[in-house]
């Protein structure tokens, strides 16, 4: 077997994190791979590239904290920010709607137990409101980080649900589909593979896909809290022979309730639109899976979170007892 690289920058992991043991079931037992007939490479008929909107979010831990309650117990706290938004690619224009209804920045103060209060942090001429939440069953700081991530994903899902009501455009959501009320043309975009859902015989097809070709649909039955979905693999980029052949492939999902013919049409549309959006390793450490417009959206959302060091200092200043600030001011004057 030749040795080939995984294109992702190592700090982001590998992107392919499924079991590699061919003997492992890897979820294949949940799958019906006969939805679109024979297992073969499929490429869509030529058609205009559809408009697409992609929802994504970023999150950031601003500061960890410890709250000492009067009874002597300690509770971990976390100041976190997250932002979700959408980037629209339509014809020759890609843009990020800059409107607080679609570009949402949120601040939260999460605490593992005890009693949490909202925290107002004055910054320059305005105030950042960190709304208090007590995530269930959270104890360690890592639980709070996970909770923050969940909050972001929830917000992403809400935004995607609202935006996907517009049937004129394809809506792409980051990660496995977890929308409760998805619109008619929603596709989940899985860039980090945890399970292949296919046996080795079928998986072999992925290595032969050309850019823009996809596998037939396969149905993933309800499992670990997720409803059943129709999924397909698509090659969005050819990374060259020095990289592993699975590294240019992504999995896409759409609700299982969709008629297979509609799901097939959506799959064809993704095959038309996504290879164009695949990022180059020059500009993105998670190329090609982290799509070019999504990279730009993440950049903008991160900028909207504000300067990290500065916010951290403002949080520290806000926690300082008021008297101390006055004392300093009095000394200065």
């Amino acid at each position, binding site marked *: 077997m030749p040795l080939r690289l995984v294109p992702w920058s190592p700090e982001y992991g590998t992107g392919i994190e499924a079991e590699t043991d061919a003997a492992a079931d890897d979820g294949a037992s949940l799958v019906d791979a006969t939805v679109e007939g024979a297992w073969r490479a499929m490429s869509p008929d030529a058609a205009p590239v559809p408009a697409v909107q992609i929802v994504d979010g970023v999150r950031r831990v601003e500061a960890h904290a410890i709250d000492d309650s009067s009874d002597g117990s300690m509770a971990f706290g976390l100041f976190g920010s997250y932002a979700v938004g959408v980037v629209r690619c339509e014809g020759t224009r*890609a*843009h990020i709607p800059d409107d607080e209804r679609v570009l949402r920045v949120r601040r939260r103060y999460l605490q593992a137990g005890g009693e949490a209060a909202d925290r107002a942090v004055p910054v320059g001429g305005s105030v950042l409101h960190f709304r208090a939440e007590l995530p269930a069953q959270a104890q360690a700081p890592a639980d709070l980080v996970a909770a923050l991530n969940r909050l972001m994903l929830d917000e992403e899902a809400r935004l995607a649900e609202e935006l996907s009501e517009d049937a004129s455009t394809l809506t792409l959501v980051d990660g496995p589909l977890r929308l409760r009320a998805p619109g008619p043309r929603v596709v989940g975009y899985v860039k980090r593979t945890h399970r292949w859902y296919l046996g080795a015989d079928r998986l072999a097809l992925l290595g032969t896909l050309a850019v823009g070709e996809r596998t037939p649909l396969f149905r993933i039955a309800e499992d670990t809290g997720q409803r059943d979905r129709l999924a397909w693999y698509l090659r969005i980029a050819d990374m060259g022979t020095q990289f592993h052949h699975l590294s240019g492939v992504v999995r896409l999902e759409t609700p299982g309730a969709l008629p297979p013919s509609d799901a097939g049409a959506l799959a064809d549309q993704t095959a038309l639109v996504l290879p164009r959006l695949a990022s180059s390793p020059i500009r993105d450490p998670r190329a090609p899976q982290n799509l070019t*417009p999504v990279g730009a959206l993440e950049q903008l959302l991160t900028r909207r979170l504000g300067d990290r060091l500065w916010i951290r200092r403002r949080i520290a200043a806000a926690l300082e007892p008021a008297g101390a600030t006055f004392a300093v001011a009095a000394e200065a004057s």
Partner: protein
Amino acid sequence: MTTNRDGDGTAPLTSNLLDASVETSTHAGLVLGMEDAAATPLGFSVFVDRDHYLQLDDVVHARSPLPPGSPAETVDFYGVVDEVRAVQEGVRFDSDVALASEGLLPAEPAVTAHVAVTRVEPEIFVPPRPGQPVSLARGDERDRALFFDQMAERVPFGLSRDGERVYANLEFLNGTRGAHVNISGISGVATKTSYAMFLLHALFESGTLGPEAANTRSLIFNVKGEDLLFLDKPNAQLADEDREDYARLGLPAEPFRSVSFYAPARRGTPAPETGSRMDGVTGFYWTLREFCAERYLRFLFADADDERSQLGLVVQQVEAQLALAARLSLPLDAPTVEIGGEVVTDFDELVDAIGLMTDPEEGGTWAGRAAAGTVQAFLRRLDAAKPYVGHLIRGHASEDDAAHVIDTGRAQVTVVDIHRLHDRAQRFVVGVMLKREFERKEASGSPRPLMLVVLDELNKYAPREGRSPIKDVLLDIAERGRSLGVVLVGAQQTASEVEPRVVANCAYRVAGRLDAAEAQRGEYGFLTAAARARASLLKPGSMILAQPEIPVPLLLRFPHPAWATRPSEVAEDEVDYSRYELSD
């Protein structure tokens, strides 16, 4: 609203222009405060609204709050846009622009403008606070930005690119606080002379001079072509846009009302040596008596070669002898002089007489103890001048010799055509005229009315290196003319070749299109870096004006001449001769 809101006596604006000036300000953007675009009291950047634009030369205003308890609540910043730049936000690599154009990468253009601050009011030099709104300055705000509000008497010197008047302060032109204009620019586009003539027109017609305008005089030498020989004729090819520009400036789109033209007298006759223009031109020459009595001999030795030689002393001694001879020649009103007992009747005879009186070999004594070689050089050069200037210095040539003396008092504008004369004769005429006018003003004892002298090719008449009698007169004008009411409107291709003292005394510096290398020279220190760069791509009709009260140079344009500059532009049937003082 038919009265002029400026109250400066200029003609009223047309109503639609006035409406435009009623609008006081327009939002344009926000003060930027980035590490590489920090706001300072002397300059700041503006993030330009996506719905608006700022262009070079726009005049802007920003107001910034001060902390409570400060001497003022706010500080007003006024300035002029001197740079605009656009970037694509959201791109990291050069090739991203292609991705953005293909609709794969969201990227929004961001335009910023840099503002050179002209005025801070009150003078609390803090930086404007980032985030404060910036607006286009119109009306009174614009006047404040450009200090027009502080100019009690102002003259329109052109239009800004947005069609608003650019004023100059009369006090810096008429000698009260300064004087003189210097214009630089490459030749071939005729802009320097056109602009000088436009300035005269503005000065005479704007009403700023008041009743004094009628008596204000100007002297212009027509050096090249026949451009200036039709100043009194309307330009038949003047476009409507130009007429509108004149209206905006509050100036009539009309030729000069009062012009007299002089051309060298033709050999053997007092009639003028003219080209296309036949009528209304007077032939000029000087009498031998005037030449001797007024010591004009030195101006025959104003060539570049002469400037470096040792002839000065001989010339001075001979001049003194000629002046003495003129005083002793009778009758006193005769145009001729008597030298060594002989009546000299023309220039050739004068040269021969001077030879006899000066050459030691002939027993001449006028040269005193000067070396024989120097005397010979003097005589050789004097002899060589005969074919070029002989016809300009005459004995008895007409019944009325006085009528052929150039009289700058006859009309507002006196044009002396020297373009057909040899270089040596040109220098003689220019030198004599400058000396005469300067001495006349000096003798009159009053700086008013003004005498404006327009002189192109200053680099020839007042070169950076060497000495010459003309340069001496020009230095005198530059340094003392201010108090005597003699204003020099000088022009040259390259200011770096002109005597620095002449240029340094000019209150107004104007640059037309400059050679790119020339624009980098120290003489153009009045231009900002951005203005220097632009000076090499200015179109005819555009100038950069630096004036004493405004810390940044302003780009301005001026309309095409309302007067004809060549025969084909003369609208003969429109000429109302009764309007003009014809000189013959």
